């Protein structure tokens, strides 16, 4: 079968019986098992596509539609063209939420990336004892609910009796009102995100490090590279794709952050003066407190654009930083 198809499309040489035929470019799936009847594929993927169409795609398309309407929960449906978007661009709350979101994202992403790569490097050490135990512990923060953790962190960051302020006080400094301040509340939220995702990402990086061929390290150490140089010139460049992946996934999640600020502030406002209001929190506020569905849908579309732009920027920056080996 595969020989026949290669012969049909092949221009240069006849298929050799000794070498496996190259995958046919014309196949829809080059890795498929051709002796199985491919048409069943439609049936097998149908449940996913039908369900996703109804509960995933249709709402998204409809959301784009209502973004062009003055549409509220009570039944008003009036086409207003781009008015939601022009109003949004002039809305201070939107810009405030955007700045807060980006700030929280930066404050969480950079420390998390550095710490998770560092942890992975420690776990990558072949002479580490109890590696299964350490790996398992790293995943514990990731399985708990944001709600439970936000309650604990909210208390730990409390102004008067929070553990963190007690330590700050014991060191001789003034207590910090984490929730009321802008940057300080962002730090508290970022801390929750870092706590939750550092271990998880460390495992991702560890898996990538274990896939690096050992010869690379051997030849590097023969060339006299010490531990740090090996990390810098062997490990890091090999992690390029993984860093990009972690950054993009982290961006998609990080720019939609809402559960932590929602619980920390107890409302969709994001603090008394909106000091930690985020884009998604603003969306929910407009959708389910103000019931301005058209306006909220427009916010959702803006979030999508922002996520796309930041992901693309991330993609190119990591390529550059991690030494694009062409």
């Amino acid at each position, binding site marked *: 079968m595969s020989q026949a198809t290669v012969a049909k499309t092949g221009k240069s040489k006849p298929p050799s019986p000794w070498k496996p035929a190259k995958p046919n470019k014309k196949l*829809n799936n080059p890795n498929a098992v051709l002796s199985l009847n491919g048409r069943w594929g439609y049936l097998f993927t149908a449940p996913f596509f039908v369900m996703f169409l109804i509960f995933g795609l249709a709402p998204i398309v409809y959301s784009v539609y209502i973004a062009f309407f003055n549409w509220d929960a009570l039944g008003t449906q009036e086409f207003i063209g781009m008015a939601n978007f022009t109003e949004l661009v002039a809305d201070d709350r939107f810009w405030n939420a955007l700045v807060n979101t980006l700030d929280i994202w930066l404050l969480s992403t950079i420390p998390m990336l550095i710490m998770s790569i560092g942890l992975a490097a420690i776990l990558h*050490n072949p002479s580490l004892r109890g590696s299964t135990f*350490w790996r398992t512990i790293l995943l514990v923060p990731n399985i708990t609910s944001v709600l439970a953790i936000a309650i604990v962190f909210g208390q730990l960051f409390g102004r008067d009796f929070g553990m963190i302020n007690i330590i700050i006080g014991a060191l001789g400094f003034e207590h910090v009102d984490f929730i009321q301040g802008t940057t300080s509340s962002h730090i508290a939220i970022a801390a929750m995100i870092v706590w939750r995702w550092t271990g998880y990402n460390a495992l991702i990086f560890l898996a990538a490090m*274990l896939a690096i061929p050992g010869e690379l390290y051997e030849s590097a150490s023969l060339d006299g590279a010490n531990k740090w140089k090996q990390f810098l010139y062997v490990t890091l460049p090999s992690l390029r794709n993984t860093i990009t992946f972690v950054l993009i996934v982290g961006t998609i999640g990080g720019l939609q952050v809402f559960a932590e600020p929602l619980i920390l502030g107890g409302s969709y406002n994001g603090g008394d003066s909106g000091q930690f209001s985020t884009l998604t929190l603003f969306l929910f506020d407009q959708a389910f407190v103000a019931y301005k569905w058209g306006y909220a849908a427009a916010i959702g579309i803006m979030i999508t654009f922002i996520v796309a732009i930041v992901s693309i920027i991330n993609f190119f920056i990591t390529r550059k930083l991690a030494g694009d080996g062409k």
Partner: protein
Amino acid sequence: MSNALAKEQTLPRPPKNKTPKWQKMSFMGYFALVLVTFLSVFPFYWMFIVASNGTEEISKIPPTLVPGPRFFTVISHVYEVLPQFNQALLNTVYVGTIVAVAQVFFSAIAGFAFAKLNFRGQRYMVLFVILTMMLPSQLGIIPLFMLIGWAGWIDTLLALIVPALVTAFGVFWMRQVIDAQVPNELLESASIDGAGVFRAYWSIVLPIIRQSSFVLGLFSFLATWNDFLWPLLVLNTPENFTAQVAVNQLKSSYAIDYALNMGGAFLSTAPLLVLFIFVGRRLVRGVMDGAVKG
């Protein structure tokens, strides 16, 4: 479990006596790991400390760092404020189990088709699945809310179950797993022996992907258990609450009663921690198997 062990032992590691000097674990390395372990576990410990001491004991300097005697008082207070708390836990288990089983089933058959079958449009369908994973999940939340209302599912558990039956992530993950773990030769020889697509899936693919399916199911279960905003939006009566909504209800009933809140948080977290003791290692393997390498 035994599979996990076997895999663990085959990890490439040089014999101990040959370890070059630069590879020795430093004291700082262990110190960092101990510190991270402490930071990872402390919030859970603190949850219990506050829940067992009461808010007053915590509101002093320096605060108590050991468990107190009031744990059961606080827990019974939780049940006073929200008598349906057990119902909420049961609801969560119910929803989580259905969602996990459905996601594994639908993801595995679709993932199998995408990995091993050749049909027209296959490539574009896979691309479509990957692209949908990039979309912010909140983008369609308002129309979804309208749709659920139109179906009459507001304030029912169906509102949580039906939209969660399939995910693009699950399908993509299963495609990767089946592609990596099921050799084409096995499927080819089965079909030469006369097995059709169903038979090949049932007797060859399924036994191989059992471990990974279990991991995907666990992740779906955990995600459902911890989902917070959507249940909060669609559920109104305490009989239908999930654990997260129930905990949140404690928060809004009183100003800030930390002991009460952390008691609820503890009740909603403890089942997961117990589950984790049994399945943690497999989850770790699942995360690492699914990682983008290189």
